[in-house]
């Protein structure tokens, strides 16, 4: 067998958002090739944003991804607000953070229980888990529903919310409307603590990597809705306007998504592991305490344990929502006036799956002349390919089916969003 070429291949990877596959080609003990194929069709957002009015960007870019529209709405509004010279602060900013917390709850509980957990529990999907353990799935759905309700109350609906605009919101909720969410949020906080304890009992492959973790800086808060700098665990510390000075986007033949690499050091990781490694100190006391209770170190280098860190982030955002609702006072005006202006603006936020970067240029009439969007999965792609290479190298003796499943799991560790990235997956492991 060690002389034959072995191919590990999944033509169409399931339980990820969007379309992609993977191919690993092994000859003897040598890994010849690792490819994350992204065949999600190109949709050309950056091209057709040109000529659109600047206030249209939040709604148009939301359509890049049905899973994390708020990530797009937050980064694009931040960029446009920079251009027009408006700072959204106070309770309007708090509402932006609240709706983003809702998106994290919806996305993280979907990924933890419905997309990632089946790999650990040996089921093809949550549908089969529901047959054996309906109470687990009922809890997952109830958690996810709370996230969606937060998005509905503040944003109008969970997929492509309609209430976020450049300068603020169309209409702000009353304190009483937000307070209706409190009992379920209190239940969700307890459920998320239980989720951390459950996730800690799963079996994890012995696999650690020396990652460069990258995440944004959000003045004294765990990074979620808006950043002004980007830092890394290996010394990167830049204002967001310098993003393209440090990150190169490459176009490779096997992917309709551009791959992001640091010019200085190559592949890097964004997402829950990165945020946790860099900003553990800013987690709420409950999140810190449960991490300590399960013995989780302050830096997690095993990507399979991202399911635990995602659960800790669920604790964080349930707690954060309760805090923000407690402090909320309805603002006098729902938005600030934003007359058009020529300029360049940058926006960064932390999508559930990692840092997202936007840059726009506008003319005097407020029309967009250039748009650049770098989604999290595009940045994680080179690191995912490297994880696969290292993982197959270490676990080459596993039988084909088990190795294929584990490689798929290694990709799902990143909660990849392929719809975003092409703006990504099929597993093929070829062994010769």
């Amino acid at each position: 067998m060690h002389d034959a070429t072995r191919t590990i291949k999944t033509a169409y990877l399931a339980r990820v958002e969007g379309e992609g596959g993977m191919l690993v080609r092994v000859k003897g003990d040598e890994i010849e090739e690792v490819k994350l194929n992204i065949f999600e069709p190109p949709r050309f957002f950056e091209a057709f944003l040109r000529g659109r009015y600047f206030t249209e960007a939040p709604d148009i870019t939301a359509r890049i991804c049905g899973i994390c529209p708020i990530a797009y709405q937050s980064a694009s509004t931040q960029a446009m607000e920079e251009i027009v010279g408006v700072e959204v602060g106070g309770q309007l900013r708090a509402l932006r953070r609240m709706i983003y917390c809702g998106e994290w709850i919806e996305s993280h509980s979907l990924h933890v229980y419905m997309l990632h957990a089946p790999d650990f529990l040996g089921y093809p999907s949550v549908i089969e888990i529901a047959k054996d353990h309906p109470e687990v799935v009922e809890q997952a759905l109830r958690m996810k529903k709370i996230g969606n309700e937060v998005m509905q109350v503040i944003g109008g609906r969970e997929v492509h919310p309609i209430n976020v605009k450049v300068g603020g919101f169309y209409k702000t909720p009353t304190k009483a409307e937000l307070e209706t969410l409190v009992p379920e949020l209190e239940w969700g906080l307890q459920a998320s603590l239980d989720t951390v304890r459950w996730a800690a009992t799963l079996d994890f492959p012995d696999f650690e990597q020396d990652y460069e973790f990258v995440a944004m800086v959000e003045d004294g808060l765990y990074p979620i809705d808006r950043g002004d700098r980007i830092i890394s665990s290996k010394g990167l510390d830049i204002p967001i306007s310098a993003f393209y000075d440090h990150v190169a986007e490459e176009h490779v033949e096997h992917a309709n998504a551009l791959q992001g690499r640091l010019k200085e050091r190559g592949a890097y990781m964004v997402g829950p592991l990165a945020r946790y490694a860099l900003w553990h100190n800013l987690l709420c006391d409950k999140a810190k305490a449960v991490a300590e209770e399960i013995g989780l170190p302050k830096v997690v280098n095993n990507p399979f344990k991202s399911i635990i860190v995602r659960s800790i982030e669920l604790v964080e955002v349930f707690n954060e929502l309760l805090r923000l609702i407690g402090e909320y006072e309805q603002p006098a005006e729902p938005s600030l006036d934003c007359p058009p202006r020529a300029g360049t603006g940058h926006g960064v936020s932390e999508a559930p799956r990692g840092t997202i970067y936007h840059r726009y240029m506008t003319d005097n009439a407020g029309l967009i002349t250039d748009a650049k969007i770098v989604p999290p999965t595009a940045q994680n792609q080179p690191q995912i390919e490297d994880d696969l290479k290292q993982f197959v190298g270490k676990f080459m003796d596993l039988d084909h089916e088990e190795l294929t499943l584990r490689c798929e799991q290694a990709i799902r560790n990143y909660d990849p969003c392929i719809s975003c990235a092409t703006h990504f997956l099929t597993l093929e492991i070829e062994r010769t």
Partner: protein
Amino acid sequence: MADLPKISVWKFSSCDGCQLSLLHCEDELLALLGRVQIAYFMEATRAEVAGPYDVTLVEGSVTTPEEVERIKEVREQSKLLVTIGACATAGGIQSLKNFASVKEYTDIVYAHPEFIDSLETSTPISDHVTVDLELQGCPINKKQLVDTLLAVLAGRRPNVPSGSVCRECKMAGVSCLLVGKGEACMGPVTHSGCGALCPSFDRPCFGCYGPMDSPNTASLAARWNELGLSEDAIMRAFRTYNGYQPAFREESIRHA
């Protein structure tokens, strides 16, 4: 299990939001799963059951040569084919490329245009195969999706009301943004289904559900003109999430 109706869910060019709407039916999902067999749904499961399928949901538009072929295969395997969302029913936001040059678009976004295999147009599913039912919206209304699935499973005709967003505003008691505040609302020409969502948030409708049956787009455009909207702004309003749907397409061309 083998006797339960088989449901398949397919993705073409799209954002995943409409198929995600199915997973967002938290209250109905477990009950629904007890009544059907999920035979193909890649976003949710790696298990696959061969066709034919009793009900097929299709999300997304056709933008690549591979999709042209795949939709034919999906149709052949499907007894009832339901398209969900603006991409599948009208070509979606990516149909903005139908009004431009794909080569130019590819050059803007990609360093190696030769790696990209994309058709000149983004087209609705009905341009390629016979569609049995359509649910409009960017995204669809998940309650309409559940109602439609339940109707189909019960063998009755789904109740998807036609008419405009205006009618939903009246039913919801939302005061008129166009008449009352002179705002450029698309409600008079936009298909109902959202429950007057935007107007109830003090936001004029922006047409994400696409055109209603027989919309009077010209009359609305004339009114917007009186309100001071530029020709370019009118063109853009019709040419966004459902811009390739004939009624909106033709109106946008009149203002281009």
